[in-house]
């Protein structure tokens, strides 16, 4: 890797900014700003830095509408908003998907619009930690804030999560390396365990790697819990892990002073889905009889937890909330984006601060080719290739301020560091405009009846 000169050419610095990438929400970033552009970022990881110093080549700057020929053409805000509002107002089964990369303030407008038109509001949890939330609903939610881990934990388990790649500063800032109040020697005071079928980058820097078979998570956790209860395992190997290893691991987890389990998409995406996490949660509950254990889901986007929290306090359900009958409904497999798309029920799809084109399976995206898609985002991405109306938003945490919730539920007010491009608008403003325009169209409809 080539050596890079430190950046010295900047006008001003902005301190204590919050990273708008993953669920770590590191709030100690320093932006180096030149000509109202972030030209350098201090303290951030590679992911955070690259997102904040975005690729301006692909920045969406003006509203676009798809023309007859199938090409996106520039238009003005009024036309684009009216077009989008009309699509929403006339829809029967609209889905508003996304929200995890925007602020709580935008969601407040979104829920107004969703409740008003009877839409389904869903966020990225539906394709990442949705099963975790279902498991939480089945088994409980023993969590802590990351500072507890930093100050107390002497054993840290990553399961189904490659933190070194997807949450690079997680180990450095919160879990493995920092020196905590009761862990003055930092990494040397802690045991790091990684459970993953692959020998990932996180596994490589752990003390123990447990490489169970793909799709063998549920059996493995069951065996671990059985051993905790004093059972002698029948099989020599469970899910590819030798009996003795499981016994040793159970003993180590029992005798630790404070443990924390971090779990990721490896568990939610494999065969037994929410039951893997269900078993993990129960494992933590069992362990608390002997020692102190907690867990935290490794949330991917900086505000994916925020949407779940926001929907829960507004409507009692965390995601996949269906307002179609005038009251909220939450039913897995019925009111979730992927199911609605694969069942081809959706008739208007609005995506805000998300990228289904990049993240939804083809079987779900295929329906997006049949229906109008409204996109509110900052970059031209795979979803733009499927979008009919494109509304350029702005970058929360850099160009606009807003509230977000960290993976452990700590709220952070992300401040504004630079001005947004002149032609862009705040997400909050766009959704409020849509709400007002939809109200007007619907009001006219009622009046004409």
């Amino acid at each position: 890797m080539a050596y890079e000169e430190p950046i010295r050419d900047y006008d001003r610095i902005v301190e204590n900014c919050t990273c708008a990438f993953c669920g770590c929400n590191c709030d100690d970033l320093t932006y180096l700003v030149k000509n109202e552009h972030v030209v350098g970022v201090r303290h951030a990881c590679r992911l955070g830095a690259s997102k904040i110093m975005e690729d301006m080549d692909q920045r969406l700057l003006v509203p676009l509408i798809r023309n007859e020929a199938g090409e996106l053409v520039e238009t003005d805000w009024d036309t684009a908003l009216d077009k989008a509002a009309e699509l929403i107002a006339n829809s029967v089964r609209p889905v508003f998907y996304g929200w995890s990369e925007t602020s709580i303030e935008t969601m407040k407008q979104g829920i107004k619009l969703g409740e008003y038109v009877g839409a389904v509001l869903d966020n990225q949890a539906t394709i990442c930690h949705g099963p975790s939330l279902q498991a939480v609903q089945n088994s409980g939610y023993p969590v802590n804030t990351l500072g507890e881990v930093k100050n107390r934990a002497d054993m840290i388990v990553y399961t189904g999560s490659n933190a070194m790649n997807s949450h690079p500063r997680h180990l450095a800032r919160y879990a493995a390396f920092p020196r905590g109040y009761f862990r003055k020697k930092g990494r040397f005071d802690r045991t790091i365990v990684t459970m993953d079928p692959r020998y990932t980058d996180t596994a490589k820097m752990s003390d123990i790697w447990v490489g169970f078979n793909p799709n063998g998570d549920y059996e493995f956790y069951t065996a671990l819990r059985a051993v905790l209860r004093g059972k002698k395992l029948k099989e020599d190997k469970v899910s590819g892990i030798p009996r003795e290893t499981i016994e040793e691991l159970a003993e180590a987890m029992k005798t630790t002073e404070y443990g924390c389990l971090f779990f990721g998409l490896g568990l939610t995406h494999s065969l037994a889905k929410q039951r893997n996490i269900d078993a993990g949660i129960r494992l933590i509950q069992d362990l608390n009889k002997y020692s102190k254990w907690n867990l935290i889901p490794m949330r991917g986007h900086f505000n994916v937890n925020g949407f779940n929290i926001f929907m829960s306090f507004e409507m009692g359900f965390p995601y996949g909330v269906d307002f179609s009958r005038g009251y909220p409904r939450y039913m897995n497999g019925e009111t979730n984006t992927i199911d609605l798309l694969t069942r081809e029920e959706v008739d208007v799809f609005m995506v805000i601060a998300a990228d289904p084109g990049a993240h939804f399976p083809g079987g779900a995206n295929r329906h997006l080719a049949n229906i109008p898609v409204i996109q509110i985002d900052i970059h031209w991405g795979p979803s733009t290739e499927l979008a009919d109306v494109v509304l350029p938003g702005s970058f929360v945490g850099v160009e606009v301020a807003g509230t977000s919730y960290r993976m452990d539920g700590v709220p952070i007010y992300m401040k504004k560091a630079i001005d947004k491009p002149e032609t862009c608008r705040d997400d909050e403003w766009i959704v409020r405009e849509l709400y007002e325009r939809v109200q007007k169209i619907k009001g006219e409809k009622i009046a004409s009846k």
Partner: protein
Amino acid sequence: MEYILKNGTVYDPTNNIDGEKKDVMFKDGKIVDNVSSNAKELDVTDKIVMAAGVDPHSHIAGPKLVVGRLYRPEDSRKGIVPKTDVTRAETGFSIPSCPATGYRYSRMGYGTVIEAAMPPLEAKHTHEEIVAIPNIDIAALPLFGNNWFVLEYAKENNIDDLAALISKWLRLTRGYGVKIVNPGGSEAWGWGMNVHGVDDPVPYWDVTSREVIHALAEANEKLGLPHSIHLHPNDLGHPGNYETTVESMDIVKDVAKNSPVRNQTVHMTHIQYHSYAGTNWRDFESGAEDVAKFINNNDYVTCDVGQITLDETTTMTADAPMEFDLHQLNGLKWANKDIELETAAGIVPFIYSGRNSVHSVQWAIGLEMFMMVENPWQIMLTTDSPNAGPFIRYPRVISWLMSNKRRLEMIENGEVHKAVGRKSVIATLDREYDFNEIATISRAAPAKAYGFEDKGHLGVGARADIAVYDINPNTIDPSNDYEAIERAFGNAALTVKDGQILVKDGQVVSTKESQTIWTNVKGLEEKEAVLMEKIMPVFDKYYTVKYENYPVFDNYVPNPIEVNVQAGK
């Protein structure tokens, strides 16, 4: 806009009005003593008029509420009401969604609610929810009892720094008063432990609950905050804990009150959970008598009850080790939330059933407290919502308090377990509350305890927070018509908040934005600055957020009611 409520029967204990036929007038959101002829007249003949209710202890907003809602969709599904032209959709029974919380309090004629536990680190979250709740004024009490800085200063008995810390943190979190939950116990839970009794030292910190309570009470009085310390003592829900409770109250007896707006120096919360005798769940029985005796003899104590309502509910408290014990007991899904340097919380669904002897005795203990504490100004109506039951059950509790007949009926019909007869004396207590006493325990006394001078009464200058209930006090016999009492108190004929009519005949007819009440202590700015210099190195090292991102900014409190206090005056 001017209004006149004509011919109601007014109960206003603060102003010694006990069931007088009287007009109540208000203008521009305040009670006035006369209005012009343009005033809009509302006829409330043969109806009860009270100040809007003040709930002294309820859990309605904050991180643990949201965990409850998030992980109990089966509870959210229970209270579903579709949206109307005025209201948004409601969900939830024991842990209603934010809009539902506001509407439901309004329907009961309540105007002010205290959110009883706010972890400072997540105070922004609590305030976001407060903004999402319509119709009621809300004050939130930040948690101090297990804060590392507090533990340290309490150990050193450093009251000056402690006072400056409280002053600073109330401003940082936009909090109202000092809440203490299981002092030392939640910190011990950081290692999976607990403390028992007031003299059990906290692991590592080597400070006792006694020292923490005393130091915080002293600091609280040094500042002269409008509310006293709000204490959830150690050993909640343990058989035999009444001794700890009495000791806890005794700790502050030498602390001199330093506030003209309230009478107490300690508020004991959900006292029902702390009035247990016996040594285990088998020989568990009521210890209400000793606790009530202490309260009757010491006017520096007030309490609220936390009455069991025998429902399926969700228990949630910052007393996290207790919640884990509860989970071990009932095996239902356990949620926990430890907050760095500050506190912890636990959540477990719980089914209180009249068929269970323990739950029934708990039910009796709460009622015993209501009966045995003689001065209604010292005891307040709560269910520690949602712990002992959701707040929508207040009308039912009122009906129990007003009807000895109903209580005996429940015991005789087997609606509660027969153990109630053996393990409590509730069947022998025939006291029945009158409407004036109900008005005291549900509005006047809580308002006084919190130092709300413009709430909880109908005197001139007070906020026009008014509840009208469709009961004719001259003809009704609450002892027999307990169902009518429950119905009326659950469906206010009118609820007025700051002069705006929110509820008519039990229906929400309009909504308004909630307001956040917080205490701004002035006069300690320099001491705070010195203290912060001491705190900052620790803060930077052990918190995971930057201090710059820690406070609750003004945009989270769009409608503040700022109570200014001059420190030490």
